[in-house]
């Protein structure tokens, strides 16, 4: 357990090897295997560490490698502090869980990538795995870091890696744009985050999570009565950071663009791990947040709104990966909702299950895209299940899981969240509102997921014919034409490298939920709410033993709620089935009957718009009214900011050139002119010179006469 620091280090080494040596010398396979091996090793170590942790009494272990910033005296709120940061890692239930997720899923995705990336040139492959390993290094640092700064290391590092990986096909303008956008938007979040960190130090005199929690637990809870205090400020700033990293309103705009990256990247970074960092960070500081209920409320609202908005946008996406992207945003919204209502355990739980099924779905989509020769538009798919059965099956499982059909994992986690939301009493929001929105989202989720499944795997095949002239409809992927320029022999199942991870993840997606079975099922399943119990120590200061708040609700009512949410999900699925499989024409009928989004959607003109949009700016915000709202308001804000910055920069540039510098030149000019004048005075006439002399005398004498 003292060797947890190795866990991040191993992929780090892998990255170093691949980066320094690999790009020049490694073969594709070898590079992949090396990276995967490192991840495998890390996984093994994490398992060991996990088991050992279970063995210990107080579920907490800290390893300090070295002093990073030696102590330097610094004023804090209460007199003298000492600013010091160590390279130290913490293993506690929360980080242990994240470890397993990251290493486990990371490992699978590495394996998967070996197959996925083989079209790339040799150097490219090594580069890819270098980035991937590097990402894992930073992600694990983020997870294990036992103080804000070490976490920030990972926090920024994963940002860098996502920048690199999104821009992996850097020849593609859109790709490099997306990468840049991701990084910069994240930086905006970090602005808040670092300020939060500073405030943390200023308040508590330390940056160590445990110490902070300890100190905070002794401070009053800043309810509306107490007022918006320093802790609230801290939490708000930190949450700004979280919205950046976890793509919440208003900073979520980067995530859909991020789909420019290779699919495994989307799966690992933009679904399973990195984007959940925000959630993780909030959970990490559970104690702080519980002391700032108002901020909690804000978090919850932001979360649920994000969930809803993203889901609605997801409804009408036709790019398979973008659907998943919006669904990710929406699911993250769920997690924040959970943290917002104080159900940190539930949030973490959902984080885990989501990691499984969302990774699964992405990899599945990747497999589809791979099999469809880089085709991403669902309207050019359909009926693929006979071509790629494994993918179809596994993705279906994933869909069911996310839709929240028992006993798949998604059901348990999502239901837990909804349940706790139902119980939640808002600070300045009426009760049940959050819950209501959550439920609506749940339905939408079910709908768009199955819309995806149906459009992809069922119905008739709408894709291009696979003769050799099949090279027409490749949506904007000029980047690596050459890699598969040779003819394409129709949709096909992907190689084992890719299918095996799918299967494994599918299994996970099926059964991961059983670690968090609601108490309600005690009768059927004795080990209820395992994960809550397991994680609980991470959410309270070790000093204060806040008793777990009892679910004060009748068994019946709880079961009723579950049934209701399941019904909702079913409804969504049925609706999707009816519209896209049973009677594909139903959509038209509805369009005729219903005004609003659907007319907009079925409108051919808008379809073209979408095509352009996919090329120009990505299809984010295409749902009817939301289309314009999102584009004009949210994204507009971001771009607006961008443009104002550029404009400002030009202004100051001009200022610099003409004003600041101009002054200097002006002085020079004046000197020049004066010089000219003096020269003219030198007429060369002796008598003028004599005159000047006499004038001098005259002046001085007059001065004397006047002075006296």
């Amino acid at each position: 357990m003292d060797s947890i620091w190795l866990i991040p280090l191993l992929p780090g080494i892998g990255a170093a090897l691949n980066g320094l040596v690999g790009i020049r010398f490694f073969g594709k396979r070898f590079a992949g295997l090396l990276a995967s091996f490192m991840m495998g090793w890390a996984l093994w170590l994490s398992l060991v560490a996990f088991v050992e942790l279970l063995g210990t009494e107080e579920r907490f272990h800290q390893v300090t490698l070295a002093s990073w910033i030696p102590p330097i005296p610094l004023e804090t709120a209460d007199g003298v502090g000492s600013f010091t940061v160590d390279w130290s890692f913490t293993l506690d239930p929360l980080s242990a869980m994240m470890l397993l997720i990251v290493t486990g899923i990371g490992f699978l995705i590495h394996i998967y990538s070996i197959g996925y990336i083989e079209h790339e040139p040799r150097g490219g492959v090594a580069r890819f795995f270098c980035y991937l390993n590097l990402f894992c290094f930073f992600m694990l640092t983020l997870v294990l870091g036992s103080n804000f700064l070490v976490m920030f290391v990972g926090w920024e590092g994963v940002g860098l890696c996502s920048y690199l990986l999104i821009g992996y096909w850097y020849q593609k303008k859109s790709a490099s744009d997306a990468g840049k956008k991701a990084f910069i938007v994240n930086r905006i979040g970090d602005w808040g985050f670092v300020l939060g960190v500073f405030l943390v130090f200023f308040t508590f005199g330390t940056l160590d999570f445990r110490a902070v929690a300890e100190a905070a637990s002794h401070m009053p809870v800043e309810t509306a009565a107490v007022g918006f205090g320093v802790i609230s400020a801290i939490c708000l700033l930190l949450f700004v950071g979280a919205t950046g990293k976890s793509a919440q309103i208003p900073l979520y705009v980067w995530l859909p663009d991020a789909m420019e990256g290779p699919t495994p990247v989307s799966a690992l970074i933009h679904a399973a791990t990195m984007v959940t960092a925000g959630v993780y960070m909030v959970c990490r500081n559970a104690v702080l947040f519980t002391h700032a209920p108002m901020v909690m409320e804000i978090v919850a609202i932001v979360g649920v709104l994000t969930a809803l908005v993203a889901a609605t946008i997801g409804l009408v996406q036709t790019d398979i990966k973008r659907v998943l992207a919006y669904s990710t945003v929406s699911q993250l919204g769920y997690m924040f909702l959970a943290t917002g209502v104080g159900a940190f355990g539930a949030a973490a739980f959902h984080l885990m299950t989501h990691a499984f099924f969302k990774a699964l779905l992405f990899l599945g989509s990747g497999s589809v895209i791979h099999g469809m020769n880089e085709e991403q538009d669902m309207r050019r798919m359909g009926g693929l299940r006979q071509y790629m059965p494994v993918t179809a099956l596994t993705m279906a499982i994933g869909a069911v899981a996310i839709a929240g059909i028992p006993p798949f994992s998604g059901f348990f986690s999502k239901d837990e969240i909804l349940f706790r939301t139902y119980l939640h009493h808002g600070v300045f929001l009426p009760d049940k509102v959050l819950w209501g929105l959550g439920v609506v989202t749940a339905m939408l989720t079910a709908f768009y997921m199955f819309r995806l499944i149906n459009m992809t795997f069922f119905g008739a095949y709408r894709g291009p014919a696979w003769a050799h002239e099949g090279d027409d409809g490749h949506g904007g992927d000029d980047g690596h034409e050459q890699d598969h320029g040779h003819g394409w022999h129709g949709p096909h199942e992907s190689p084992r490298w890719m299918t095996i991870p799918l299967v494994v993840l599918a299994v996970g997606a099926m059964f991961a939920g059983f670690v968090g079975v609601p108490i309600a099922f005690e009768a059927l399943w004795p080990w209820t709410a395992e994960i809550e119990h397991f994680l609980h120590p991470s959410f309270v200061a070790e000093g204060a033993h806040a008793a777990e708040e009892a679910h004060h609700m009748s068994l019946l009512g709880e079961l009723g709620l579950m049934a209701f949410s399941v019904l909702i999900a079913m409804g969504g699925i049925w609706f999707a089935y009816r519209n896209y499989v049973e009677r594909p024409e139903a959509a038209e009928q509805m369009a005729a009957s219903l005004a609003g989004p659907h007319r907009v959607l079925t409108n051919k003109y808008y379809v073209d718009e979408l095509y352009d949009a996919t090329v120009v700016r990505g299809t984010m915000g295409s749902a009817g009214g939301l289309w314009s709202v999102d584009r004009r308001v949210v994204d507009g804000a971001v771009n607006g900011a961008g443009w104002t910055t550029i404009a400002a920069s030009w202004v100051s540039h001009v200022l610099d050139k003409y004003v600041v510098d101009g002054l200097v030149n002006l002085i020079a000019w004046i000197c020049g002119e004066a010089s000219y004048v003096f020269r003219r005075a030198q007429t060369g006439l002796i008598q003028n010179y004599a005159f000047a002399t006499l004038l001098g005398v005259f002046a001085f004498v007059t001065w004397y006469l006047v002075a006296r």
Partner: protein
Amino acid sequence: MPAGFTAADFYYLLPELLLTGGALLVLVVDMLLPRRDWATLGMTLFTLAATGAAVVGFTGVDTTISAGLLAIDGFATFFKSIVILSALLTVLMSPSYLRVEAVRPGEYYFLILCATLGMLFMASGVDLITLFIGLETMAISFYILAGYLKPSQRSNEASVKYFLLGGFSLGILLYGMSLFYGATGTTSLNGIAEALAGGERSLTVSLALVLLVAGMGFKIAAVPFHMWAPDVYEGAPTPVTAYLSVGSKAASFAMILRIFIEGLPSLVADWQVLFWVLAAVTMTVGNIAALTQSNTKRMLAYSSIAHAGYILIGVVAGTERGIAAAMVYLWVYIFMQLGAFAVIALLRRQDVIGDELKDLSGLYLRKPLVAVAMLIFMLSLGGIPPTAGFMGKLWLFSAAIESGFVWLAVIFVVNSVISLYFYYRVIVFMWLKDESVGSDIVISPAMATALVIAVVGSLLFGLYPQVLFEHAQVAADMFGSAVSTAALR
């Protein structure tokens, strides 16, 4: 009164006597010997060397001779050595130049020596009459030397201008002196000092003061009495210009310090104001006017006007430190100014006048060492460490600050920045422009010696000025001051 003239006086007059004798001998040699160029040159150099040795011999002496007309003190010795050293360098840079100009060197050297003689008296005279005669000896020699290139119209014009204005200013100066004589009934500076001590100043004295300032201001080319300088500097033979800008300036400053510090300490409040104004105006006008000059000699003329302004700061301060500052600055000024003029003289060839900026272009490629030397001189004039010029400026700064003339110091600062601009134009032409004109440059051994001395001086006194400072301080302390440093706080 000390009864006239004692034998001891001959002993203390040794330098002057040597110089006079040498000068006469030069004439004789010039008449008698064949290959007279070298003979005269050698004779002159020898005379100067001997005189220098004699002067240095009197280091530490502090006495007055010949009925208190002359003082042999550290101050005098210091300025005498300045004068003689600059004369030496001037003579060294002359021969090749004279050869190009096809001028007979005999009388030339004689006149240089006589000018030097006059300067020696200016340095050590403590009586208006002595000072005046010394001044005139110097001046008349320079009138002739300025016009020494008879075929050249510019040379003629230079001498006419210098002569007319010189005569005019001489009139003013003498009138001032006569008024002082009237006010105090004596011509000896100490007498004047004690006569003026205590008694309240009458307007006549103020008038006399102004006239004196004007007269001396002309000699050191202080604005507004400076206007002759650019024209004369441009027209006169380059070595003469050099000597004029260094030797006569140094001697005139010696005279100024004598008269105002030793003779008129009780009027310090008055002349401090006058010189404050003069200094400020002089350096500003000098520098700014130099900015746009394309003729090197003219540019250096303005720059030497500006330097006169700088040195006046020392006079304004009026403290021992101020005097020492002026002395130090004049000392280091020898090397940089003469060095610069030596380079210009060097550029004079059959086909090139060599006093235009463009004549300098590409110098670096033709004669790298000369270019380096010129670079050093320019930096020194600009006061960039580690050159001697910086140490000089340092002293002036500290004098001004110590006496609390902060604004003067600030003006000084601004000016020394402006000045760098035109010194850098010279450097730009030498180093950064490649096209070069005219036949190739030959360096005579004499010239080489001059350059080497100048370079060594400009660097040595920048890196290790201790010796110089010591002497200057000792001399200044012996000399006394108008404002005692103690009085400052």
